[in-house]
C-alpha cells in the first residue's frame, strides 16, 4: 500500500470523509442548487425555465419582502438590547448568590429547553381574549388586554419577539455566567481595596473580561435573527396584515404556499449574502485586533 495512504494526514481525512460526504449532499449541494434556482421560475415540480435576474427585480418591487426586511432589522435590534441587558444583569447578580444559585439558573434556563410550540401555546393562552388575562380582567370590570397583542398589527411583532426573548435570555444568562466565573477574583479584590462600587466593578472589570464571550453572543444573535421563523409562524403566521412577517416566513410562504420555489430561492440567496456580510464584518474586526 502506498505510504501516503497510511500517513497521519490521510487517516485524518478518512475520519473526516463521512462528515464531508454528508455535508456536501445535505448542505452544500442544495445550497449551490438554491443559488442556481434563484435564476429560474421553478414551481418545485415541473420544468425549470431560466429567467435571468427577473426574480431579483421582483424582489426589489416586493412590498412584503421590504416589510419583512424591516421587521428583521427591528427584531435584531430588539434581541441585541433587551435580552442582552437582562441576561447581563441577571448573570452578574447570580454571581453574588452563593446558595440556591443552581435553582435560579434552572429557572432562567428552563424556557430555553422547552419546544417553541410549548412556549407559544403558553403565551397564546396568557394573551387569549376569552380565557387568558384579558378575560380575567374583563371579569373584574377592567378593560385591559381585551385584545390579544398577537392579533393587533401595532403590537404583533413585538409580542412575538417578547415570547422568543423570554425563551432566549436564559441561554445568554448561562453563557455570560460562564464567562464571569472565569474572571480572576484578584481583580475584584484589588477593586474592593480601591473602593470601587458594584457598578464600577461590572463596568471596568467584568464587562471587559467577558468581551470575547459577549461579542460572540452578539454575533450569534445577529446571525440567528436572520432565519428567525418558528415563533412567528406558530403565533401569527406573519399577520395580521404582514405586521409580523419576517424574511424566513416570506420565503416559506413563497416556496410552500405559493409554489414559487425559484423566487423563494432568491430570498434565500439574499439571506445568505446578508449573513456573509455579517461574518465578514466580524472577521475584519478580528483582523483589526478585536478579541472576537
Amino acid at each position, binding site marked *: 500500500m502506498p505510504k501516503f495512504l497510511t500517513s497521519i494526514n490521510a487517516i485524518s481525512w478518512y475520519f473526516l470523509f463521512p462528515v464531508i460526504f454528508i455535508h456536501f449532499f445535505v448542505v452544500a449541494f442544495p445550497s449551490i442548487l438554491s443559488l442556481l434556482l434563484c435564476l429560474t421560475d421553478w*414551481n418545485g415540480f415541473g420544468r425549470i425555465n431560466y429567467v435571468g435576474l427577473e426574480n431579483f427585480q421582483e424582489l426589489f418591487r416586493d412590498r412584503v419582502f421590504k416589510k419583512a426586511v424591516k421587521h428583521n432589522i427591528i427584531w435584531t435590534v430588539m434581541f441585541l438590547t433587551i435580552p442582552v441587558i437582562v441576561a447581563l444583569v441577571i448573570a452578574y447578580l447570580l454571581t453574588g448568590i452563593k446558595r440556591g444559585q443552581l435553582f435560579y439558573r434552572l429557572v432562567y434556563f428552563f424556557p430555553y429547553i422547552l419546544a417553541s410550540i410549548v412556549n407559544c401555546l403558553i403565551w397564546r393562552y396568557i394573551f387569549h*381574549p376569552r380565557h387568558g388575562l384579558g378575560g380575567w380582567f374583563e371579569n373584574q370590570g377592567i378593560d385591559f388586554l381585551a385584545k390579544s397583542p398577537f392579533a393587533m398589527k401595532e403590537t404583533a411583532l413585538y409580542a412575538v419577539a417578547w415570547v422568543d426573548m423570554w425563551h432566549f435570555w436564559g441561554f445568554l444568562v448561562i453563557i455570560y455566567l460562564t464567562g464571569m466565573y472565569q474572571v480572576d477574583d484578584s481583580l475584584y479584590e484589588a477593586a474592593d481595596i480601591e473602593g470601587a462600587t458594584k457598578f464600577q466593578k461590572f463596568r471596568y472589570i467584568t464587562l471587559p473580561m467577558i468581551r470575547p464571550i459577549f461579542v460572540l453572543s452578539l454575533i450569534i444573535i445577529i446571525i440567528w435573527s436572520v432565519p428567525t421563523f418558528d415563533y412567528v409562524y406558530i403565533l401569527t403566521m406573519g399577520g395580521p396584515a404582514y405586521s409580523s412577517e419576517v424574511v424566513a416566513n416570506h420565503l416559506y410562504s413563497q416556496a410552500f404556499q405559493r409554489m414559487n420555489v425559484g423566487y423563494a430561492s432568491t430570498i434565500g440567496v439574499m439571506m445568505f449574502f446578508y449573513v456573509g456580510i455579517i461574518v465578514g464584518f466580524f472577521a475584519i474586526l478580528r483582523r483589526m485586533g478585536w478579541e472576537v
Partner: protein
Amino acid sequence: MNKILNIFLTFILTAFFATSTFAATKVVWWMESSADTDPTVQEMMCDAFNAEQDEVELECVFKEDINDTIRPALLSGSGPDMFDTPGASYIKIYQDAGLVKSMQEYADQYGWQDKLLGWAYNSGVFDGELYSIPKNYETMIYFYNKTLFEENGWSTPNTLEEVESLAAKIKAKGMNVYAYGSAGWQPTHEHLVGNYFNTYAGPENVYKALIGEKKWTDPEFVEAIELLRKHMVDEGYWSGNLETYYSLDWDDFNNEFATRGSAMLMIGTWGFNVTATNFGESSDDWDWNPLPILNSQAGSAPNYQLATGGTMSINSSSKNADGAAKVIDWILSDKARALKVTGSLGYGAWLLPLKYTDADFDPNIDPRQKRFLTEFAEASDSGNYGYTTWTFYPNDPGVHIWKDMEVVWAGDITPLEFMEESQRLWDQARADDALVPVGKR
C-alpha cells in the same frame, strides 16, 4: 445427495413462483392523517376492502401534512401507488410535472363519470383526462341557534337588509352575530371572501372571472370586498371584532356558538359534526340554512359553493396502477356503504360526491344532515352553485386572497387595490397555464 438437493431446489422454486403468481397485488395509499377519523377509515374502508376480496391488498398509511410528505416522494420517482392531495390546484402542478397518472382509461372502463356528480368529476379533468377524484365535498352554509331565534322571535335572514337588521338585534342582546376565528388556520379568511363573492357578486360573475371573461376588478367584486370589510371591521360581525376573530381557534368559536356567545356560525359543512356534538351537551337546538343572498345580481335562489376537500390520485410511477384503480372503483361502487362511512365520521369527511338518492340514506340519519345532502344535490344539479377559492383558484391567487385580505382589513390597501393585485396574479397564472378546470355552467 444430488437428488435431495434437486428436490429441495424444486420445492423452493415452486414455492417462489406460486407466491409470486397468486399473491395479491399490494397497493399502498398515503392518506391525509386526522386523529379523529383515521381509525374509522382504516376499519371501514381499508380493512373492509381487504376482507371483501383477495386480488388486491390495500395498505393505508396516514400521513401528517400530506402535501409536504408526498412532494419529495413523487419527485424522487418513488412514493405510494395512491395518494391524497389537498385539492385540484395541486393536481394541476403534479400533472404538469408528469407525477400523476391519467385515470381516463379506468374512468371509461368502470364508468366513474356516471357515478360521480358532474361538477365533482370535472374538477379532476385536466386536458381532457381524469387525474383526480374528490374524496370529500363541502360547501359554505350557516348554522344558527334555533332555540335562541325562537325565544327572541328572530327570523333567519335571506337578504342583506335582513342580515343587517338581525345583526343589530343580536348585538343589542350582547351577543356576537357570527362565531368564527382564524387562529391556527389563516386561510379561514378565504371562506368569508368566497361567501361574499358568491352571494354579492353572484356565481355567474365569479364563473366569468374564473374563465377570464370578466375582470376581478369589476365593481361587483370590489363592492363585495368592501361589504366584507364593513361587516368585519366596522360592524364586528365575527366574534365581536377583528382582533378577537384573529385570536379564536376552532374549539374557541365552536364553543362560543354552542354557549350563546354568538347566534350564528358561518362555516363549511365540515361544521355539522362539531355543531351536533356541542349542542348535544346543551339544552338549545340548532339548525342550518344556505347563505343569505346579499345582492340581487347574485340571483334569488340560494347557491351552494362547490368545494372538494381532498382528492385521490394514482402515482405515475406506480407499478400497481390497475390495483389502485380497483380500490377506487370499490370505493365509488356502493353509495350506501359510502354514506355509512361518512355518517360514522359525522359527514365531515369522506363525503364522496356520488349521485345519492333517498333510498341510499340510513333511516336514522339526522334530518338536518339529510336535508343538506338532498338540497345540495338538487341545487347543484339545477345550476344553483357557486365556487370556493380553495377548489377553483390556482395557488398564487388563492394564497393572495387569504394573506392579503388582512391588509384590506388593516386599512393598508383599498378593496380595489386588493382586487387589482388579484387580477395581476390571475393574469400571471393564466399565462403560465396554471389554471384549474372549471366545468361549463
